[in-house]
């Protein structure tokens, strides 16, 4: 363990390291290699333990559950926790794209495909299971991303009295962050659909409902014509 | 196979006979020399604490009498639990911890035979049954000098029974 090694006395020739070591509160590895020293585009084999994530996420849900007024409020809090992650991931993932494709998605379909492939792969090591446009003519601004088995919900059993709740609201927050960051403001909500006959196969199936703001749809229609 | 100890409880829940074979204070070098019988039957009658040799040096160790009481409490609780779950005709045969195995046999008259062995030992129910048939019935029940009840272990630890048990246990160890 790097932190257990004795701290080297600061040497005259290494002012930078001496300064780093003297900062209280934050622990720096003595080699000076923090995650900030890693190249941003090294994305392979950067996997985390699912167990540690599960414990962390469990605590995040418990934290969000404190002083909460209802299920909607709880989902809102989880959504808010995910939102900044989405904003940051948009930048990071675009940076990691091959140089030619390093542009911000300019229409809804490109954005959603970026989300279901690049974002999903980065977060869960697999693409999302489906992407559909709402078939209802009254809601042309709604799109649905399906995940048969959301990774964040793997170990979570929601009690019966809270069956409206889906903790993947956190992931919905991330998606919302990406949409907002790309200039496509939207509301994203997570819904459990693994109840009916499909429920046998995928009891945890979740649909992320992406509802874009009216101005986005308006702009899209205008751009499509020209 | 190692036999650590052997107990008989009568229907009044009293321990009427107990015998401890050498505990593993030192590695057993093989052969009968290491089997050092320490009989403390009728311990309550003379009141003197049984000499447990080196084992007494350890304060955490329970006295042999307390051991017997704990063993009875255990088998009594387990017997009731097993009957509750498995039905009135069920009876427990043995249990094993990481260190020892306890074998249990109960006669229709509620006399209970208990033997503690090492964990590798297989089912000893037959052995306990033979002790009951060939030693208990022969040398205690049929002995005209032995009383019908054995308060304080009276009459159980007679010479023939002790000898018989010794040879019998040595025979299958």
């Amino acid at each position, binding site marked *: 363990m790097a932190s257990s090694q004795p701290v080297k006395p600061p040497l005259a020739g290494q002012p930078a390291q001496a300064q780093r070591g003297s900062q209280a509160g934050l622990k720096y590895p003595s080699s000076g290699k923090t995650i900030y020293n890693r190249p941003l585009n090294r994305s392979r084999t950067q996997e985390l333990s699912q*167990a540690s994530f*599960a*414990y962390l*996420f*469990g*605590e995040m*849900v*418990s934290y969000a*559950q404190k002083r909460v007024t209802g299920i909607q409020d709880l989902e809102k809090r989880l959504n808010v926790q995910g939102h900044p992650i989405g904003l940051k991931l948009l930048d990071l993932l675009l940076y990691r794209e091959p140089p030619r494709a390093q542009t911000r998605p300019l229409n809804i379909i490109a954005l959603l495909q970026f989300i279901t492939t690049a974002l999903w792969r980065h977060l869960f090591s697999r693409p999302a299971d489906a992407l559909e446009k709402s078939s209802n003519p009254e809601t042309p601004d709604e799109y649905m991303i399906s995940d048969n088995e959301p990774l964040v919900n793997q*170990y*979570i*059993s*929601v*009690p019966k009295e*809270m069956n409206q709740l889906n*903790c993947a609201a956190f992931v919905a927050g991330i998606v919302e962050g990406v949409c907002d960051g790309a200039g496509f403001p939207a509301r994203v909500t997570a819904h459990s659909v693994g109840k009916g006959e499909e429920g046998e196969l995928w*009891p945890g199936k979740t649909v992320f409902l992406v509802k874009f703001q009216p101005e986005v749809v308006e702009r899209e229609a205008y751009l499509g014509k020209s | 196979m190692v036999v*650590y*100890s052997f107990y008989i409880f009568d229907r009044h829940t009293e321990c009427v006979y107990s015998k*401890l074979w050498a*505990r*593993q*204070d030192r590695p057993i070098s093989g052969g009968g020399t290491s089997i050092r019988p320490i009989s403390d039957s009728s311990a309550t009658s003379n009141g003197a604490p049984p000499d447990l040799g*080196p*084992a007494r040096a*350890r304060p955490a*160790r*329970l006295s042999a009498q307390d*051991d017997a009481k*704990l*063993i009875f*409490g*255990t088998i009594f*609780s*387990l017997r*009731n*639990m*097993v009957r*509750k*779950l*498995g*039905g009135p*005709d*069920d*009876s*427990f*045969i*043995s*249990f*094993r*911890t*990481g*260190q*020892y195995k*306890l074998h249990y046999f109960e006669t229709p008259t509620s006399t209970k035979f208990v033997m*503690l062995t090492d964990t590798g030992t297989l*089912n000893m129910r037959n052995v306990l049954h033979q002790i009951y048939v060939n030693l208990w019935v022969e040398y205690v029940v049929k002995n005209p000098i032995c009383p019908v009840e054995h308060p304080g272990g009276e009459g159980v630890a007679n010479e023939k029974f002790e000898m018989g048990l010794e040879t019998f246990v040595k025979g299958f160890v």
Partner: protein
Amino acid sequence: MSSFYILQTSFPTADKPQLCGLVYQRDFTEGLNKLSVNDYLVLAGTFHGVHAITTRLNPLHPPNEPPSGIEVLETEHFRLQCFQTLTGTKFLLFTEPFQLNTDKIVARIYELYADYVMKNPFYSLEMPIRSEGWERRLVREMRVLNSR
């Protein structure tokens, strides 16, 4: 025949004494007698006590390893495998007398417990387990075993 219990001993604190609780109990097939909820609780308490006593009856001197309580109990009608975690939670599995590899089955159930009970943010410690995900996977595991 199999049936499965989880017993827990809570840590005593200033405002509550040590409790011996039964946090989960389920029968998977017929075989064992059905008891009332209260009887199961009494049984759990008894087993806690017996388990503690059996650790003290160790005839080996000096103990060659930290003493453990009952691991396997055999009766004419069933076999009980008990596994105790380092924190004192006990897993009790009742099977037919000649069921093999019961220790492995319990280890597998422990894994499910660690995943689907302990990682669930809606489970409060020392309370009865009512997690749908745990229930579903446990039943599936047992169905596979019982169909063999």
